[in-house]
């Protein structure tokens, strides 16, 4: 018997007589390399999950298990999806891709930090900050943990300061008295560990989520000041945020 036969026999024995699952019997290593057997095991595990939920909800009617299993087996015989999925050809990777990617990445991380916000239509955020952070990652550090944290603090605080400066300019040019909240000034002067930890987390989140344009919108907790900032940003933006549109117009 080959590995597939062994696995299917163990799975059938488990389904019919309640012996250990293939995983419990140590046969699950095979599913790492065999998609068909893994799908068979998945079906069985999903079924068991349903049955457990059914038991919690008040018990499983007699014979239901056998009927479901029979339906699953017949369905599997009629619709062998696995081979059909295998008909999709592997994508062709263009020649020289790695070299082009490498050159592209290098050119982008070595680009000068010039003001270039043409490709970004957010309300006043400056792209070079993000580019500076990208470049910084390529600089070899004697002590990456310490220098990296210092660097992140510096960039984050610079970003917050820039953001605040832009907003203040906007407020002044619109004739509204700038009222920088005391809490934010204090945070800029002496950021708490909690704030820095949150910024680190946001940086990680932004990195993985790919939405760096939004990260500084959520730097602080969403309190009344944040809502005011968003209103202000909406008033300055060509594309008004719908929920702030009325308020912005009312404020004139």
């Amino acid at each position, binding site marked *: 018997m080959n590995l597939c036969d062994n696995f299917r026999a163990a799975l059938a024995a488990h389904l019919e007589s309640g012996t250990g699952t293939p995983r419990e019997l140590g046969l699950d290593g095979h599913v*790492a*390399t065999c*998609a068909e057997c*893994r*799908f068979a095991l*998945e*079906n069985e*595990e*999903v079924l068991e*999950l349903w049955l457990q939920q059914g038991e919690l909800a008040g018990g499983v009617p007699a014979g239901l298990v056998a009927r479901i299993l029979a339906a699953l087996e017949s*369905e599997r015989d*009629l*619709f*062998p*999806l696995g081979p*059909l*999925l295998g*008909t*999709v*050809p*592997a*994508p062709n*990777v*263009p020649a020289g*891709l*790695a070299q*082009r*990617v*490498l050159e*592209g*990445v290098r050119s*982008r*991380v070595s680009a000068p930090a010039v003001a270039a916000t043409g490709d970004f239509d957010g309300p006043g955020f400056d792209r070079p900050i993000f580019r500076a*952070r*990208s470049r910084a*990652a*390529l600089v*070899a*550090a004697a002590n*990456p943990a310490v220098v*990296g944290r210092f*660097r992140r603090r510096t960039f984050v605080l610079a970003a917050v300061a820039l953001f605040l400066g832009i907003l203040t300019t906007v407020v002044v040019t619109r004739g509204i008295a700038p009222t920088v909240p005391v809490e934010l000034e204090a945070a800029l002067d002496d950021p708490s560990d909690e704030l820095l930890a949150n910024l680190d987390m946001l*940086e*990680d989140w932004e*990195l*993985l*989520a*790919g*939405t760096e344009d939004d990260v500084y919108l959520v730097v602080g907790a969403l309190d009344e000041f944040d809502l005011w900032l968003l209103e202000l940003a909406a008033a300055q933006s060509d594309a008004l945020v719908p929920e702030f549109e009325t308020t912005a117009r009312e404020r004139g």
Partner: protein
Amino acid sequence: MTGTDHPTSTAAADEGADLMLRWRAGDERAFERLVELHAGPVYALLTRFLGDTPNREDLVQEVFLRVVRARDRYAPSARFSTFLYTIAFNLAANERARAELRRTASLDAWAGGEGDAPDGRGRELVDPNGVRPDSELARADAGELVRSAIAELPAQQRMALILARYEELPYSEIAVVLGSSEKAVKSLIHRARESLRARLAPLLEEDYA
């Protein structure tokens, strides 16, 4: 991509993390090797997920740019491929959402006036819910039909299926990539398979009944 040329399976999985750590320690050649090893698989993953969109190379470059930015913070708590696919999935999902937005806006603009469709073709009277005729099914390549059926799955279902079936990632890693739980991944894959069965029923009946 087949399971045999997958760079992140078993022992090779550690190679990605090892290269990342060596690069962080100053070995620039390690980063080159990372790109050489993983650019192809990332491109293949994006192709399976997004289809033949023209900017896949740009997205691959964007994925590695984010790897560059993560260098100081990278911790090998998961396989390098898991880390890489997480970034790729999020970028691809964003890209798809943007493309969908552009397409919707373009179609809205077109629907509001007269003239040809945005792609330059004339207006066609097509029933969007119509079933493709059997003759068309027969002409089309089976692989292309399966690929288009997969393309119609919701993003999370599609990526879960691609990672499980074509990239052969275990559920635990798919859960990390999707930011979900293993149970949720099982459910996603189950629902994806049910959807595919329904969509591909004519083909399945024809070939296997």
